[in-house]
């Protein structure tokens, strides 16, 4: 089991983090046409060389990778082949009339009214008239629905090219005993503490239980200075997604006095030309702490600045 670190336990809350990335998804011809036809309230399938029809339309057979011959218009009626309930949503597998496959969608009925083999019909949404599969709100029981037919797709809409999409993933990261004490010391004492490596006096930052290089236990805790030396740097003058400050600034890898590893931080600059002259590997820098209450984060150091020779 984990070794107990030589410090009292730090009871920090977890570190909240969000990864939120914008995407432009490419649905391809078949799914692109299916979605483009949603506002027209037509359900598009793919017909393959053996005559089988798959709906919703797919560019490739999920079984053998074959490409379809043509797009077709599928009927709005079908049969329920399986179902479950997750939360309040009933989700079923539906085989549309004349189609070879099944697909999941919402079933808009109470459970007692639902049985495998029952006839269902698509219900178009009153709210969503856009290019989403949710333009079909779901499928409702339709016991008397006549058998529908697959028809040629007359005058298909242009397939959607790309679809703007976003997915956000939330995290609650544990600090663990070592990062926990480091951030606690930053918050409480305004000092940066590491642990000595397995074979020397210089500290590893961030601190950890096992020395990365020797894979031996690290040593005792040690406070590092908030001054240090740049060992690598780059002047950033391009705006990219995810930046936390306006350009230009310097990204710097700084070895604090008393440490053996580099910490990443930023140096504000006035202009590119003077920065090129004054900021380079070997330049001495000092931390500028934020004013007011510290949060226990690397951002409690607002930036580093060059120590004038």
């Amino acid at each position, binding site marked *: 089991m*984990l070794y107990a670190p030589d410090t009292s336990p730090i009871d920090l809350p977890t570190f909240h983090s969000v990864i939120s990335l914008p995407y432009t998804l490419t649905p391809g011809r078949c799914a692109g046409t299916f979605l483009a036809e949603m506002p027209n309230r037509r359900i598009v399938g793919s017909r393959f060389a053996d005559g089988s029809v798959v709906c919703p339309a797919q560019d490739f057979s999920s079984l053998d990778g074959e490409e379809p011959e043509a797009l077709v218009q599928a009927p709005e009626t079908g049969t329920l082949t399986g179902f479950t309930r997750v939360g309040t949503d009933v*989700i079923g597998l539906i085989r549309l009339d004349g189609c070879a496959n*099944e697909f999941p969608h*919402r079933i808009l009925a109470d459970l007692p009214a639902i049985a495998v083999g029952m006839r269902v019909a698509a219900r178009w949404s009153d709210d969503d008239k856009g290019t989403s599969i*949710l333009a079909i709100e779901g499928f409702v029981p339709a016991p008397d629905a006549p058998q529908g037919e697959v028809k040629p797709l007359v005058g298909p809409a242009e397939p959607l090219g790309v679809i703007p999409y976003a997915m956000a993933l939330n995290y609650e990261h544990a600090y663990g005993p070592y990062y926990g004490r480091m951030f606690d010391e930053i918050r409480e004492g305004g000092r940066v503490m590491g642990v000595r490596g397995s074979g020397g006096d210089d500290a590893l930052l961030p601190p950890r239980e096992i020395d990365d290089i020797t894979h031996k236990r690290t040593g005792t805790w040690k406070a590092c200075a908030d001054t240090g030396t740049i060992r690598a740097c780059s002047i950033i003058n391009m705006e990219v997604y995810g930046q936390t400050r306006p350009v230009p600034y310097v990204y710097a890898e700084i070895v604090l006095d008393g440490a053996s590893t580099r910490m990443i931080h930023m140096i504000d600059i006035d202009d590119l030309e003077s920065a090129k002259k004054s900021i380079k590997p070997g330049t001495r820098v000092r931390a500028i702490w934020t004013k007011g209450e510290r949060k226990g984060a690397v951002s409690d150091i607002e930036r580093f600045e060059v120590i004038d020779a």
Partner: protein
Amino acid sequence: MGYSQVAVLASAQTQLRPAWNDAQHIDLISAVVGNVFKGTGLTLDDVDFVIDSGSDVLDGRSISNCGFLGALGAHHKEEARVEEDGLWAALYGVNKIRSGASSVGLIVAYSKPSESDVDLYWSSMVDPFYQRPVGFGQKAALGIQAQRYLAAHGITDRALADVVARRWAAAAANDKVAMGKAPDADAVLGSGEAALPLTNLMISRPVDGAVAVLLCDGDIARRSGRPPVYVTGMGTSLETHSFAARSVNRLDSVEKAAAMACGKAGWASGAAADVVEISGSSVIGELLTLEGLGLAAAGRGIDAAMDDKVNRSGGALPADPIMATGLVRLAEAAKQLAAPARAGLAGPAKALVHGTGGVAMQTNCAFTLEV
């Protein structure tokens, strides 16, 4: 030159907990990497390569293994990441040793699902145009799989609950899983609906933890002073991504993977095994796996599930460290073979190990182990 024999030499695990709130990934990883060598006579210096399994989506950072290299003991070593359950990492490692390219491999798998939203992890695996918007994901797929199985085979909820309760009792006895009082069948039935007809306890419980397994060639294994457990067969197979297009009420890919592994081992079927460690994503997934492995006829997985030899460790239902679960099964099976008396076995034995990944067990992997 013939192929090398490959042995599972040793393993180490952290406790499997609903949440390791006071430890990072690297804390869990370095704990198992530090412990796995104990008693083997080997050290990290003897390790030729490190292969690890984890999920960037679960870990909340891309190429997450890069940040874990030091904890993994991989500094200046050959290292590779397998974005699939750790049993596939072991498969990769066995092949590297068996080919003669290496002698000692360290396989590590880790998981901290407590740090993220597991439903979103599963949601990220399904189609974004047709499936995600309608709420289709792991729970829905497992629920539909279960609904169809129960309808086809007339198994009762109570019988399923008995299997789940048995797994929790086994996990409690094995003492690797953090839990309160092990739930009995009534508690399983009363644990709330997850995906009709499955209750929450009928779906595998995500837990945090790490596991390390040391693989080595036959010569090193024989010199180690520990009873070598040899990998005699491996197989892997995938279902189509489209859940609706898969065979109903069977896991074809389990059958294929088992046929490949048992064929290599020279076993007539998975029924030859004295120890069976499987990773069911749900209790129905366990039954389907047992049927695919050849331990029960279609629809009769419930009989094999109550056999003493199945999931003595408790399996995945009480503790599913997603991406590490199959490697935990390998570690548990190897321990049972290496110390048969402790596991209640008469003597030298054969083990069958199963790992899975993907929505509703899309990918499956099987190992045969022998002493």
